């Protein structure tokens, strides 16, 4: 027996019934973090892996070297994208209760992570999302109806009914197909970026994963390959504090930040306020410039909070305090941007209210149209297509099974 030893088990700061507590979260004031050049050496970036890059402060002011000085029209756009994302999330989430869709995963509270990054990148850059990045599609101006129809498995479903809701893809918009298997997209993004370098094309790749999923092998492979070949890729870890029921400490966030994994591979790691549109935009821009200039990969940790349940199958009140989100010190990304715009004089509470209403209406209309193409329980899709796309051409074997199926259907 050794009294010193016992298995150390990471603990969340609070469980249901206890008051929310974010004292574990290392913060930093807006504007405090220095901004090295995108060509900086790893050494010059090392502190950024453990500090927190923030631009918008609690009053809505934009501060410091990381302020990307976006034009107002850009900020209005970002606000709209985030609101559309949230409204769509809310609409489809509710439809799950009604049985029109089987399942849903919302991104509430994390909209800035996707929207600001997409805006900081170029259309030719390839995005490798996880299931909570619907904002990427929205910020690349995809009509939300496309996403809705996928969730509904209806006649306009881009996945032809084959995939669970939210497993979108968009070839034309350069957004990769989402996998149900966590983290697999990260090393694929690195491979995509390697090909870009081999072809000497200016496009870079950008991938996202949840902090919980960094424990998967793919995260390691992504860092290794990105480091070895200095691939033009941005790897984003969305640290929303939770992975289903387990706290980010169980993923390895207790003793070190996730951004800090980068420097261990010679890759800059930037820890950023994920609810701060300006900060997310700025770090993405920095990393993109670095990659495009031949400087290789960047690892970005986005500190945010999963405001909703993990999915419609989840009940977070079983494992965390009900009001945790309200106590989250980095707030709500939409409110943060709204406040910044109001502070800068380019927005008002009234205009905001009007915009919310406009978007709500628009989403309601879009949803109506989407539903008119069918819903999961009454899917108009032809099940015969289930035998397609296993291979480019159906093999004789699949042909036989298809015939068997047709015969049986009568």
């Amino acid at each position, binding site marked *: 027996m050794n009294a010193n030893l016992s298995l150390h088990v990471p603990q969340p700061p609070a469980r249901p019934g206890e008051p929310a507590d974010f004292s574990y979260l290392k913060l930093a004031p807006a504007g405090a973090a220095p901004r090295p050049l995108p060509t900086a050496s790893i050494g010059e970036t090392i502190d950024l892996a453990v500090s927190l890059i923030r631009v918008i402060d609690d009053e809505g002011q934009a501060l410091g070297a990381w302020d990307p000085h976006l034009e107002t029209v850009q900020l209005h756009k970002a606000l709209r994208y985030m609101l559309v994302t949230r409204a769509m999330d809310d609409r489809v989430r509710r439809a799950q209760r009604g049985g029109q869709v089987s399942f849903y995963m919302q991104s509430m509270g994390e909209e800035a992570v996707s929207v600001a990054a997409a805006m900081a990148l170029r259309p030719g850059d390839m995005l490798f999302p996880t299931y909570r990045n619907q904002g990427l599609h929205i910020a690349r101006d995809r009509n939300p109806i496309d996403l809705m129809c996928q969730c509904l498995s209806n006649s306009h479903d881009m996945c032809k009914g*084959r995939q669970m809701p939210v497993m979108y893809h968009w070839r034309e918009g350069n957004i990769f197909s989402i996998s149900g*298997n966590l983290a697999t997209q990260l090393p694929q993004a690195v491979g995509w970026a390697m090909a870009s370098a081999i072809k000497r094309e200016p496009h870079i790749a950008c991938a996202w994963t949840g902090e919980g999923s960094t424990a998967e092998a793919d995260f390691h492979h992504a860092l290794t390959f990105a480091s070895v070949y200095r691939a033009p890729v941005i790897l984003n870890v969305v640290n929303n504090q939770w992975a289903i029921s387990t706290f980010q400490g169980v*993923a390895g966030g207790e003793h070190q930040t996730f951004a800090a994994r980068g420097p261990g591979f010679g890759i800059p790691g930037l820890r950023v306020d994920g609810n701060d549109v300006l900060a997310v935009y700025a770090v993405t821009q920095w990393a993109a410039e670095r990659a495009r200039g031949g400087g290789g990969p960047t690892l970005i940790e986005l500190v945010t909070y999963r405001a909703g349940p993990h999915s419609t199958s989840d009940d977070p009140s079983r494992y965390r305090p009900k009001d945790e989100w309200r106590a989250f010190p980095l707030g709500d990304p939409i409110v943060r941007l709204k406040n910044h715009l109001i502070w800068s004089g380019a927005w008002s509470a009234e205009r905001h209210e009007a915009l919310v209403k406009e978007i709500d209406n628009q989403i309601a209309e879009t949803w109506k149209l989407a539903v008119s193409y069918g819903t999961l329980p009454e899917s108009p899709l032809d099940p015969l297509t289930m035998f397609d796309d296993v291979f480019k051409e159906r093999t004789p074997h699949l042909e036989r099974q298809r015939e068997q199926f047709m015969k049986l259907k009568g």
Partner: protein
Amino acid sequence: MPRMNMIQALNSAMDIAMQRDEGVIILGQDVGYFGGVFRCTDGLQKKYGEQRVIDTPIAEGGIIAAAIGMSVNGLRPVAEIQFADYIYPAYDQIVSELARLRYRSAGEFSAPITVRVPSGGGIRGGQTHSQSPEALFAHVCGVKVVMPSNPYDAKGLLTAAIEDDDPVIFFEPKRLYNGPFDADPDKPAVAWTAHSKGEVPAGHYTVPMGKAEIVRAGSAVTIITYGTLVHVVQAVVESTGIDAEIIDVRSIVPLDVETLATSVCKTGRCIVAHEATEFAGFGAELVATVQRECFWQLEAPIERVAGWDTPYPHAFEWEYFPGRKRIAAALEQVMAGT
């Protein structure tokens, strides 16, 4: 006798195993404080503490590797893989390590681990929450592979698996967690309380691995199946009135060839049915074995009914599922002997 659904039966097996043997520990994603996404480990952390019911990082390969190390250090880990579809990151640790450790060390080291794997479809899970990959483990020498079809067997087999000195991959057809399922998704759900196999002793017992069960005796044809399809096949047999013998394989490795062969040699006809995709699926092994053992008694080719060789499509779940129509059609064909 208490009545349990399959979740409760599994929970009870683990509870009793932990009570009887301090070395039994549980690890997996969300299995601890939360009690598992299917709630199979509900209450166990509260009862046995965080040192014995361990929430892990999301790394299936790490979970199995850590479990191997723990077992080499005298523990008897029960690892949960959240969905069968997510077992592949652990495949190397299972195939190259778990299955091979005893052999390569000539018996000096071994890893008595049970890997619990919720599997199968019918829950609108789409292609990444519906798979039945048992064939991918059946072909791997060195691991045992079982799949119960009811709460009684689930508890008895899980207890046997945990107590077994060899590694066991334990597939749990999740469509059966809450009740038997006859492949009609529109009918009101049936509960295990209404089923004789929902009677589960509260205490310790085992169902030995390596033994198939004759679920229904019959003389006209043998239907060999396991998992969710056991119940679908039963429903078909009831509705057609054909005097079929239904065998629940239960134990894929080791396989109870004797029970299968005795039955088919008696009936002269055979259907093999499983939910997994057909091509190179475990059904092929069953067919190959049965044709060898009963060739001279067979009066018709053995038919397979299985998942189509495509991923499990979300919207066409019931067109994909090898349901009653397909089983009935195969039955008709085998009875006609064409």
